[in-house]
């Protein structure tokens, strides 16, 4: 590629005369890469610093402005064997990083406090049964209070904020009983310290906080990890476009640098990178990634085209419009809005439990106080016992039960090349009983491929494929994929709109339209058997071959769909493509319920009808036209090749050419959901034993500490089972899928 990419939009100029560029790097696999990249770049004159983050595969380069061009840096990396892509960190990710750091600080404070208070508390416990003097005990209690009060005020913030947020909206969540328990226990302990009593609960409070923060932190870390990989992937597939500058020259720029009002040039065979209206030129565009429709649409001046469409045979000049200005996009956005509001009504399992749990616990505490007062105990004693009930039922295990499973399960999904977008998706995935697929790009591969390669003589196929390397036509790219020898033939000439030809050893070779190769009859016969495919003819001297090209099914689609059906899922297809194109796919997969020619609104209507029947629908789709349906479905999945807007709506995104992740995702989600329910069960059984003990006043701080840490440990250990029992099978499934880059 002779053109160099203009990266100036990604370069940050700093006050001290240096420039800074962040890059996402592909191909890092070992520790030696660090030295190779950093050393190699630092040898470039003018480069001040290069620092590779091995954890998330990002490189920060700084150089003295004007001495090196960013393109030179990327070129040098290419020479070293790494592909680099300019990377713009997204606001969400920076926000998450700040939150993670804050949680870590809270965790550190809680850890410090719980260790030191436990030191004092154990001394008091052992002193109480031996010979501690009341003065020493008071001293220890005051010290514990001194540590606990500021620590809780600092480390408890995540819970206070979340509980306040819930209460302000008139809801309760798991954090409300936690905060009530923490505050009551602290108050009571301070009062007891003033009264120089034997028992305080400072140790229980900070230990509880420490455990809960551990859960929050690992939950956050897991989500941050998947988000980092996802945004690396986003920058890897970031596209470029040819911008027509003021002076009429062409510049190759990343799409991020293109603004509304710019003019861009799209050549035949290129993917349109940005929405716009056609200023001049005429062509056909393949909008299968946008609408699912596989027949091409003819466009000329004034027509609207969408990002993601493939330009076929003519050169187009586009006027870039601001995003969201097309008729299709308008409809999609409008539908999205209504669908998204419907979805936010889903209540997470943990919050559902919390809703029932909090009132029961608080009633139990109130009953305890009343019962003790009624039986003649002092008001002070009764209140102490009631608060002990609240402390012991403070839902530590309950609050850990769900997030720990979520963390372990999203780790398992990560290994299966699936990235979760939303935390509660696991619960919704587990309830699924109907799977609705989009066709184009979901059941089929997003790129074209030769479907009858097996019926063609190997030497003919190889020659055709090598010749195809010289063509820019999108259909030729599918043929070129078959080439084992990646060197194009010398002297190949492309005849626009017809094909390519060359002369090898005195014999002419032609690849292109059947008329161009004199194989019209053969092509007609071939297409008759497979009307949805396009025919490319190949002529080599007297020999002729016809290659059928279309979007093939994902390699394991048939097996996965059969497997899903056998497991009792109702599989359906809703496609934006013509019914004639959907029928053979549905037949091949054995799916009886299918519909073609669906507009976004149709898809939503169909999903609503399924919902009305009481079904929980998993929607799997990739096109822009699927975005509203993905938002409207109970839960949704997208392949990584999906349009950006669509990916943002999906609850999870999967990588690779295979459909297996869909089945695996459901399996992992079901296992995780089972474990979540088990964990909640364990937490409730624990309370069943703990509450009566507390009711009768047997809960000393020692018992509380043991009970709370015991139940949290059991819940956490149980959650580890979500990793899955068949690692061998998982490893096998991972083969063939692309390696996950960076973490």
């Amino acid at each position, binding site marked *: 590629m002779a053109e160099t990419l203009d990266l100036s939009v990604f370069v940050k100029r700093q006050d001290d005369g240096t420039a800074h560029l962040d890059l996402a790097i592909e191909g890092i696999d070992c520790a030696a890469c660090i*030295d190779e990249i950093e*050393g190699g770049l630092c040898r470039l004159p003018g480069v001040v610093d290069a620092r590779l983050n*091995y954890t998330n595969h990002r490189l920060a380069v700084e150089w003295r402005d004007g001495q090196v061009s960013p393109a030179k840096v990327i070129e040098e990396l290419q020479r070293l064997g790494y592909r680099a892509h300019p990377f713009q960190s997204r606001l969400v990710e920076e926000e998450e990083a700040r939150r993670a750091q804050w949680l*870590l*600080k809270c965790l550190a*404070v809680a850890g*410090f406090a719980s260790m*030191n208070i436990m030191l004092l508390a154990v001394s008091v416990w052992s002193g109480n049964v031996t010979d501690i003097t009341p003065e020493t005990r008071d001293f220890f209690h005051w010290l514990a209070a001194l540590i606990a009060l500021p620590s809780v005020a600092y480390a408890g913030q995540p819970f206070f904020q979340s509980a306040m947020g819930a209460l302000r909206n008139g809801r309760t969540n798991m954090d409300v009983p936690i905060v009530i328990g923490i505050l009551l226990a602290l108050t009571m302990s301070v009062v007891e310290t003033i009264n120089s009593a034997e028992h305080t609960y400072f140790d229980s409070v900070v230990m509880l906080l420490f455990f809960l923060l551990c859960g929050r932190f690992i939950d956050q870390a897991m989500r941050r990890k998947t988000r980092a990989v996802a945004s690396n992937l986003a920058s890897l597939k970031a596209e470029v476009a040819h911008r027509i500058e003021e002076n009429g020259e062409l510049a190759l720029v990343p799409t991020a640098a293109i603004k509304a009002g710019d003019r861009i040039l799209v050549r035949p065979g290129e993917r349109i990178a940005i929405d716009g209206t056609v200023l001049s030129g005429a062509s056909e565009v393949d909008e299968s990634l946008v609408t699912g429709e596989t027949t091409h649409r003819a466009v000329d001046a004034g027509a609207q085209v969408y990002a993601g469409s493939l330009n076929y045979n003519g050169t187009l000049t586009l006027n870039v419009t601001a995003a969201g200005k097309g008729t299709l996009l308008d409809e999609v956005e409008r539908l999205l809005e209504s669908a998204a509001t419907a979805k936010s009504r889903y209540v997470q399992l943990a919050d559902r439990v919390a809703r029932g749990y909090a009132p029961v616990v608080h009633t139990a505490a109130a009953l305890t106080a009343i019962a003790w007062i009624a039986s003649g105990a002092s008001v002070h004693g009764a209140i102490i016992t009631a608060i002990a009930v609240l402390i012991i039922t403070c839902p530590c295990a309950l609050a850990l039960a769900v997030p720990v499973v979520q963390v372990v399960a999203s780790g398992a999904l990560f290994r299966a090349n699936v990235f979760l977008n939303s935390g509660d998706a696991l619960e919704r995935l587990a309830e699924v009983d109907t799977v609705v697929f989009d066709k184009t790009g979901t059941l089929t591969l997003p790129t074209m491929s030769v479907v009858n390669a097996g019926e063609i003589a190997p030497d003919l196929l190889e020659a055709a494929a090598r010749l195809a390397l010289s063509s820019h036509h999108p259909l030729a790219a599918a043929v070129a994929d078959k080439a084992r020898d990646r060197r194009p033939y010398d002297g190949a000439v492309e005849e626009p709109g017809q094909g390519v030809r060359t002369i090898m050893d005195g014999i002419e070779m032609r690849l292109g339209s059947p008329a161009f190769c004199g194989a019209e009859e053969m092509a007609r016969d071939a297409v008759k058997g497979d009307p949805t495919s396009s025919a490319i003819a190949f002529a080599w001297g007297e020999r002729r071959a016809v290659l059928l090209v279309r979007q093939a099914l994902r390699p394991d689609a048939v097996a996965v769909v059969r497997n899903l059906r056998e497991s009792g899922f109702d599989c359906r297809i809703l496609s934006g493509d013509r019914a004639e194109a959907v029928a053979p796919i549905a037949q091949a997969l054995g799916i009886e319920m299918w519909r073609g020619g669906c507009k976004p609104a149709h898809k939503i209507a169909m999903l609503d009808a399924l919902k009305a029947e009481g079904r929980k629908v998993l929607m799997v789709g990739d096109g822009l036209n699927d975005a509203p349906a993905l938002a409207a479905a109970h839960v949704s999945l997208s392949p990584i090749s999906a349009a950006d807007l669509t990916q943002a709506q999906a609850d999870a995104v999967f990588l690779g050419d295979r459909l297996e992740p869909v089945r695996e995702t459901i399996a992992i989600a079901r296992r995780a959901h089972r474990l979540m329910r088990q964990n909640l069960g364990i937490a409730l059984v624990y309370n069943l034993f703990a509450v009566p003990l507390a009711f009768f006043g047997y809960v000393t701080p020692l018992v509380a500490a043991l009970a709370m840490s015991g139940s949290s440990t059991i819940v956490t250990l149980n959650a580890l089972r979500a990793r899955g029992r068949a690692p061998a099978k998982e490893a096998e499934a991972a083969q063939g899928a692309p390696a996950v880059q960076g973490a």
Partner: protein
Amino acid sequence: MEVLIYLVPIALMLGLTGLAAFMWSIKNGQYDDVQGAAVRVLSDDDLRK
């Protein structure tokens, strides 16, 4: 047992020092690249000329 009056505060101060050191290390970005730190220890060119 009067010794506790200053021993316990000393123990606490030590703990606080540890906490402060940890806070500094977070702020200093020592946890930004955990995997990188683990492998960088093996490379011996830390004295860059």
